[in-house]
């Protein structure tokens, strides 16, 4: 087992600087993921990080584990293969709102339904950043994007509710302003033996903020601070006061059988049966 004594060892420092724009929130999320891995004491040799395609998914290139930068939308499918083939590995999926909620949406709900022990961290910057600012399923109604030049006509997913309804056993949401909460949610996701989903709301000042006149990065962080309400606090608040707010915190934590464990039990049962046959 390779224990991590220094969080810097979790990065491929020779691959830095990263490709993200000034003010991008992705670095904060990567840092939170690394801190959660570090504080959870995961064995670096037994931890695999998988990503899809997009700004967020470039994170795996900077992280010093067995890392897999896959095709657009399909990270969860590769991760499913890794986890099922080797259940002893810790598998973390880093994905974006386009990668996970649009092209990869079907894989998200089916992995959640199986309750396979994956930890999916969705970087939500409300836009397709890598391709230059097209709207995603997480771009709020009315917002401007290069492909919604007159305002976005579509509605967004509540992706946390979607993951919960599909069968995820752990669901959380935080933002790049609420970093300590984000670290804690990811740690609990790692601890949960089952499908865990954490939405990390990020900021994209360049491809989203500028077009929508949301100000620079600090201004966008301030917006997150002012509009996020912890789910526990929200329970004591008047609905009127929750208008224009969004919830953060632990959204769901339940118990359900984990898929790879069920499969291993099946193998054990069949092989025990085979021994009996011989006798």
């Amino acid at each position: 087992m390779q224990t991590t004594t220094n969080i810097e060892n979790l990065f491929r420092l020779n691959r830095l600087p990263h490709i993200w724009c000034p003010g991008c929130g992705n670095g904060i999320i990567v840092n939170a993921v690394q801190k959660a891995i570090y504080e959870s004491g995961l064995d670096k040799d037994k931890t695999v990080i998988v990503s899809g395609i997009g700004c967020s998914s470039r994170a795996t290139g900077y992280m010093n584990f067995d890392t897999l930068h896959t095709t657009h939308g399909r990270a969860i499918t590769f991760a499913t293969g890794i986890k099922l083939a080797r259940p002893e590995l810790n598998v973390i999926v880093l994905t974006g709102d386009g990668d996970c909620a649009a092209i990869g949406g079907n894989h998200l709900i089916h992995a959640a339904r199986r309750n396979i022990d994956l930890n999916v961290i969705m970087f939500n910057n409300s836009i397709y950043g890598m391709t230059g600012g097209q709207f995603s399923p997480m771009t709020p109604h009315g917002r401007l994007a290069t492909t919604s030049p007159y305002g976005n006509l579509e509605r967004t997913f509540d992706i946390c509710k979607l993951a919960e309804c599909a069968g995820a056993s752990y669901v959380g949401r935080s933002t790049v302003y609420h970093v300590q909460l984000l670290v804690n949610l990811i740690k609990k996701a790692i601890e949960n033996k089952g499908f865990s989903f954490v939405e990390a709301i990020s900021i994209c000042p360049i491809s989203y903020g500028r077009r929508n006149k949301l100000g620079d990065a600090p201004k966008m962080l301030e917006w997150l601070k002012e509009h996020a309400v912890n789910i526990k606090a929200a329970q004591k608040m008047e609905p009127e006061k929750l208008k224009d707010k969004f919830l953060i915190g632990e959204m769901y934590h339940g118990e359900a059988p984990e898929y790879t464990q069920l499969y291993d039990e099946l193998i054990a049962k069949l092989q025990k049966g085979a021994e009996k046959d011989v006798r």
Partner: protein
Amino acid sequence: MKTKRNAQLLQGNQACSLGALDAGVRFYAGYPITPSTEIAEFMAEELPKVGGKFIQMEDEIAGIGAVVGAALTGTKALTATSGPGFSLMQEIIGFATMTEVPCVIVNVQRMGPSTGGPTSPAQADIMQARWGTHGDHPVIALSPGSVLEAYTLTIKAVNFSEKYRVPVIFLLDEVIGHLREKVVLPELNELEIIDRKRPTVSPEQYKPYAVDESGIPAMADFGQGYHWHVTGLNHDETGGPTGKADVINQQLSRLFHKLDQYRDEITLYQTFDVEDAEYLLISFGCSTRSSLAAVELLRNEGIKVGLLQLQTIWPFPDHVIKDFTKNKKGVFVVEMNDGQLCLEVERTIGNRDLLSRINKINGELITPQEIIDKVKEVAL
């Protein structure tokens, strides 16, 4: 323990599944599609008994994704599908090619395009197997002509994927997939089973895409402490993405040509009655069987015909085609499509006048009589 294998009645899809198990495949992920489903059903039942894993995914894209993920952990992995599913898998087949992850994709060919004839045979995915994914790339595709070959060539497919680190396309067709024949499988201890080359250096020294004279990099299993990066982006020998033109050129040149030095051992074929043949049939898969019957009947009438059965479709065996078509009065390419393999034969022999096509696209097998008629048209 029983070691001697008895004669048994086996279906092509079952034989393919058995071959996969005997080659060491311990992971299957796929999505149900006719006429390939018997492979998934067999794997669902048998894999857990030997400690392997089967998973039915939400679509074929997820199937091939999970297969590549499992393969990265050092597990031999396979998926099976048919035309529509094979189309869906193409992007990730390209990913496996680019990242050099061994895996086998069985395509039990049915009529296309589109939904076509789900239960009707065709051999029309020859070019899709070669060029289905975007960009230049190496590929291996094998096609069996009998139930026994469905077993032996599946083992070859798994071995090739492991040795050369390429996805291997296994082109079954509906006829061979659903055909039941009496077979005697080779003894397990007679089988050659190949495992991928693992690194012999420490993780600190490991360069995932550095090669020796074999041209094939050593591959570390995920979870063994090598901490390597796998990406579909252009990458250098460390596996990290690169935009440097000279490095990209060097890596892609190696990738595109890594099979070249192994062409002889990858090229598998059989010949029937070619020694004194004046006319040559070239065929593969299910059409081999009609061709063989035609050869026998034509010879009874004194027409000297031979048959070349290609078991390796890709890389296309140019040298074999050149050798066996030399000094022939006529060459006939027999295939259940609108003429795909014949394009390669034409390119190879460079003489259109010598070449005749025998095709059928209505979902019915090419009959020996149809072949006989065509040969006689040319020969008499």
